[in-house]
């Protein structure tokens, strides 16, 4: 209990220290504000962006595509993972390609998608889906490979059908790994959307980064980065909450 309190306090103290350093250090070290704007510079710019640049619209657009890309990508990744997990044959056949695609830098596909689909929301959605897809797929597949054989045999002995074994044994066994994959994917989703917006289009926080950069407006770039972080953070926290509920049956390590 005291420990928990201590953790929170220290954490807040670090935040305050960083904010103070951010406000004081650039001026003290004579760093010009177009290189590193101070905290108050950034806040002032934030207000201006809200009033003049339609900041709310950009935030909502980025959040929407982050969540959308995350949902579509992880759904596809999970479905693919379960399908491959149920078929040794296809897993073996496809695994080199999966590995290759996993290694390929997904964000580099963004310009290609723009050439194919034009300057609309499609490219950033696709980059996000692609980048989210693999960690979910790989985690699910890994979990399907390591489902307890004895548990599956027990289900077989109880005359469960192949599909019954999947729904009642394999699928629930893989949920911890699935959730871990989703958490990784949530952090990647923000990267996917940002790259998509950086490369093309005129909406979203990624666009504000390239726009602010072009105008040497460092404060705008700072703000956009922080807001992107907040979006990713919120998605992560929501997932963590869901995970806590879904995995309630796992014994907790008491400290």
């Amino acid at each position: 209990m005291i420990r928990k309190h201590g953790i929170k306090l220290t954490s807040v103290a670090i935040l305050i220290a960083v904010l103070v350093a951010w406000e004081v250090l650039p001026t003290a070290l004579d760093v010009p504000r177009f290189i590193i704007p101070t905290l108050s510079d950034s806040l002032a710019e934030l207000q201006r962006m809200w009033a003049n640049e339609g900041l709310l619209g950009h935030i909502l657009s980025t959040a929407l595509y982050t969540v959308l890309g995350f949902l579509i990508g992880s759904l596809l990744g999970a479905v693919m993972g379960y399908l491959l997990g149920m078929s040794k044959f296809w897993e073996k056949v496809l695994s080199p390609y999966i590995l290759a695609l996993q290694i390929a830098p997904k964000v580099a596909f963004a310009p290609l998608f723009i050439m194919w689909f034009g300057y609309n929301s499609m490219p950033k959605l696709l980059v996000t889906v692609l980048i989210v897809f693999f960690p979910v797929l790989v985690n699910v597949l890994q979990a399907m490979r390591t489902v307890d054989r004895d548990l599956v045999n027990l289900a077989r002995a109880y005359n469960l059908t192949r599909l019954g074994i999947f729904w009642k044994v394999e699928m629930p066994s893989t949920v911890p790994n699935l959730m871990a994959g989703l958490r990784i994917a949530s952090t990647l989703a923000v990267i996917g959307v940002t790259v998509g917006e950086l490369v093309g289009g005129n909406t979203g926080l990624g666009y504000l980064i390239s726009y602010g950069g072009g105008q040497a407006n460092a404060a705008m770039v700072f703000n956009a980065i922080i807001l992107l972080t907040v979006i990713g953070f919120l998605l992560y926290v929501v997932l963590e909450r869901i995970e806590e509920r879904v995995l309630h049956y796992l014994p907790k390590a008491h400290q």
Partner: protein
Amino acid sequence: MALEFRNVSKSFATQGDGELLAVDDVSFRVEEGEFVSVVGPSGCGKSTILSMTAGLYQPTSGEVLVSNVPVTGPNSHVGFMLQKDLLLPWRNIIANIEFGLEARGVPKADRRARAMKELDHCQLSGFENHFPYQLSGGMRQRAALARTLSIDPEIILLDEPFSALDAQTKLLLQNSFAKTIKDAGKTTLLITHDLSEAVLMSDRILVLSERPGQVIAEIKVDLPHRDQPIRRRVLPEVGEYAAQLFKHLKLEEKAA
């Protein structure tokens, strides 16, 4: 009779093109209601015998019959339990006990009623809504037994169900298993490394040789209190039976 092995052999394909003979020409019978233990050195094919009885895989040659019908695949006549309790961690205890009934088209209300009855028999009343991690190892094994009994199998197969437990829990659990199984009148095949456990719980003991497993001795345990191993334990003859097993397994020669 309840279970019969007729000249059963089983070999496994090994890496490369080799074959590993795990069980070699094993024949034995288990009568209805009988409690038979199988002892033998590690790796001699005991678990393989159990898996073939459960229909998880087929003998390479020979036949396994349950109630005079050849076993061709997993079937509802047989219930098995391993050293691991194999409870589903995401289900509470009562839902775990119902697991075996779900593929059989038993209506939900009936399932719950049967599961509650077995929960009671296995002295777990009050724990139906707990999750496996909230139970002790011994309680989890009792829950696994309740799950096994709830499908009302003709034969119960036990593969070292007590070996992960501490000495006291083991004794108590052997006692409660013995009583529950005797009351239910179930035919039972117990695989164990524990020679005194075999003597305390069985009507008969089969001794297997080193791999490939062959039946090298069959010992009838002529002692009372099969349903109460704790009472059987104090009988002076128990030591003699254990010594006999000891000799058949050539443990002294091996230690030398």
